[in-house]
Every structure is written in C-alpha cells, then in structure tokens.
C-alpha cells in the first residue's frame, strides 16, 4: 500500500512540474529581467573567447544544419522564437559576444528550460555560434 502511495505522490509531482506552462521566453525571470540578461552573466573568461571558426565560411552552414537538428523545435524555424524559447534574432543576441553565446550553449539555463548542450563537441557549439551570428548579420545587412 505504501508503494502505491509513493507512486501517487510521484504522479502528482510529475503532473505539477511536467504540465507547468512551457517557457514563454520570460518565464521564471525576476520582475523586469529579460531572458536575454543571461547573456550578460557570462564569465569574463568566456567573454574574451574568440570563435575559432570565425574565418571558416562553412561553419555557419554546418551550424545551420545543427540548429535544425537540435534547436529548431524550441527556438523556431530560422531562430525566430517559439512557445518554448525566445528568438535568437533579438538585438540582445546580435550585440552579444560570441563567447557569451558559447557559454549559454555550454551551460544552458537549466532553471529556465534551456538544456545544457555541452554534449555537443566544442567545434559543433562554435558552428552554432557562427550560424546565430550569421543570422543576425543577415538581418543587419538587410536593414541597410
């Protein structure tokens, strides 16, 4: 009987946490704090990092394919944002240093439902950074 009680408690907990609203981009933020503020929390060591694939023209192409495979289901097609995760075409991302984006990818924002992507090898994470940068450069160029 105790076993079934344990399962009941686990089941209720599962429903409460599992069915809570998915991240809307700003869920879990402190009042007035944007989800993009996480980019500013990157340690100095990361902020100083340069993208080792910055000169590699193929990096953004490969990053685009990786984005489709791993990120698009939350961040939306071409990173315009979705119900679960924010747009990566926002001014905050455009202004962010490559190292800050790499830091977010490597550490996630687990309290706000962004998974840790350290399971992707470093070069693949840098390819993703290249893609995100390229997306935002496209946007800047199209405005000119």
């Amino acid at each position: 009987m105790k076993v079934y009680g344990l399962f009941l408690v686990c089941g209720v907990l599962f429903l409460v946490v599992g069915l809570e609203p998915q991240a809307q981009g700003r869920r879990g933020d402190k009042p007035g704090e944007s989800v993009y503020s996480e980019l500013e929390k990157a340690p100095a060591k990361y902020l100083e990092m340069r993208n080792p694939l910055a000169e590699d023209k193929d990096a953004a192409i490969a990053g685009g394919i990786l984005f489709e495979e791993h990120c698009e289901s939350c961040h939306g097609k071409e990173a315009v944002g979705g119900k679960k995760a924010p747009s990566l075409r926002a001014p905050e991302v455009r202004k962010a240093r490559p190292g800050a984006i790499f830091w977010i990818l490597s550490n996630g924002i687990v309290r706000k439902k962004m998974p840790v992507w350290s399971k992707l090898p470093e070069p693949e994470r840098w390819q993703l950074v290249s893609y995100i940068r390229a997306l935002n450069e496209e946007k800047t160029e199209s405005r000119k």
Partner: protein
Amino acid sequence: MFALKISTRLFIALLFTAAAVYVPRLAGQENPYIVAYDHNLEEPGSLEVEYFSTFGTQRGGPGFHGFWSEFEYGATAWWTTEFYLDGQSTFGESTIFTGFRSENRIRPLKNEHFVNPVLYVEFENVNEADKILKEVEGHDVESDYAVPNAVARRERDRELEFKLILSKNYKGWNFTENTLAVKNLSNDPWEFGYALGASRPLTLKGATHRCNFCAQHFIAGVEMYGGLGDRYSFGLHNTSHYLAPGLAWNLPSGWTFRVEPTFGLNDQSHQFLLRCGASYEFSGFGEAVERLFKGHRE
C-alpha cells in the same frame, strides 16, 4: 494473461498512433552507454521512447533474451523521469513480464563544472526472473540467472536504488562514473556497484550537408560495470564484472540505434551478452499533453 496482452496491444497501437501524428523532431546526441549514465539529461518537454534487448549466454542453463521499454521524459532541464517495463524470454522455457521500474535523475547544479553530479533514485518492482542486467550490484553472479522461470518468478524484489553520477564532457569526450547503492525493501543488506564509461563522436565538427551516415552521428564508447558486494562483505569477492564497447548512431530524424557486445571479465560473469536498442525522441510531448489538459492558448 489475456488482459495483459490486450493492454500491451493497446499500448503499442497508441504508440504508433502517436508516432504517426506529427510530432516535431529533435535529434538527440545519445551516448552509446546502456548501463552507465552521464549528466546529459533529456531535453525539457521531450519524451524518448526506447526499446532494448540483451541476449545472454548462460552456463548451467539455457540462453536468454532480456528486453525492456523505457519512457524517458524531460520534466525540466534539471529533472528527467523514466518508467520501464521489463520482460524476458528464456530459450526452451517461457517468455514472461518481469516487472517495472521508475527512476528520476536530478541535476543539482545549474552550470557545468569540472565534474557534474547528478542524483539518481529508482524504485523497482520486479521478480527474480528479471534478466535485463540493467545494473550489476552486490553479489549478482551468472549462476543467479540459471534458476528456471517458473521458480524465479515467484519471488518479488522491491528495491530502492540510489546512484551518484559524476560526469564530464571534455574536448568531445564524455567520461562518467556511477556509484550505486541498492536497498531491497525486505530485510536484505545494502548492496553496492559501479559503472564507468567513456565515449566520443567519430568526428567533432558538424558536416556542411544533411546526412545520416556522417561520422558526427556515430558515437563510439566503452563502459565497464560490476558489483562491489554488500554491507557485510564489501569488495570484489564473488562479484561479476563486464566490459562493453559500444556504438550509438544518432539519426537527424530523432532515431538512435545502439549496439554493445559485452564481455564478462571473471568466472562469475556471463561470458557474453549482446545488447542492442532503438529509441525515438518526441519533441514537444509535454506541450501536447499540456494542450490536452488545458486546451489551446493563443
């Protein structure tokens, strides 16, 4: 028995219906481990449905096929919960359902560190005929598995299992160490075990074209696991140990296939086990369930 068959059929039908309905894909990056765990949890809202088989040789008895299904759900980015259904077929004897397991993995630290801990708690309710060898603990040895199904299934094990998973991703490699402690809820002593693993993708850079067979989608690895005795006789005496090189193939469509030949390292171990598995990740499963219970929100 008939009721079980009906429910199994219903379950399979539901699973295929769910797969047939469009569910956004999410390609996983699963390591080839079948026993060891790393600190990479399921993506939040994703459900991974997995099937695994273990074919084993048995001295002093017929060979067997242990199989299980896993339903792994990312409740949050720091909590993954899983439910297992186990069964086995002993050649020349019978095929039986052996029980279920429920596990939770929690990541206590929010950032990546030099070593990343994950806390693991599992409740299992299986009978003694269970042969999936999902973990090896205490004084588990090959001869335990030679008991005929008709006898072994009469005894039920209700156990709580705790693991401390310490894992690190470094330059494309994953290294993991699991320490486990198991308490049978009857009056048996605490039992201990371990699992170690290392893995790496065949290449570290993503390809510039879409492909299923690119080296980046294959992760090779090796794991080693075994028992460490119990509270009263801790150590390697009368324990079994295994070494298992493995390969995982992560397809961009969301499918992952794993194969792992496993070799017993001492006389107390099965000489050879062949493990293989297939899994599919349903991204957005949590949202779909949420819509079901809460309706659409524009």
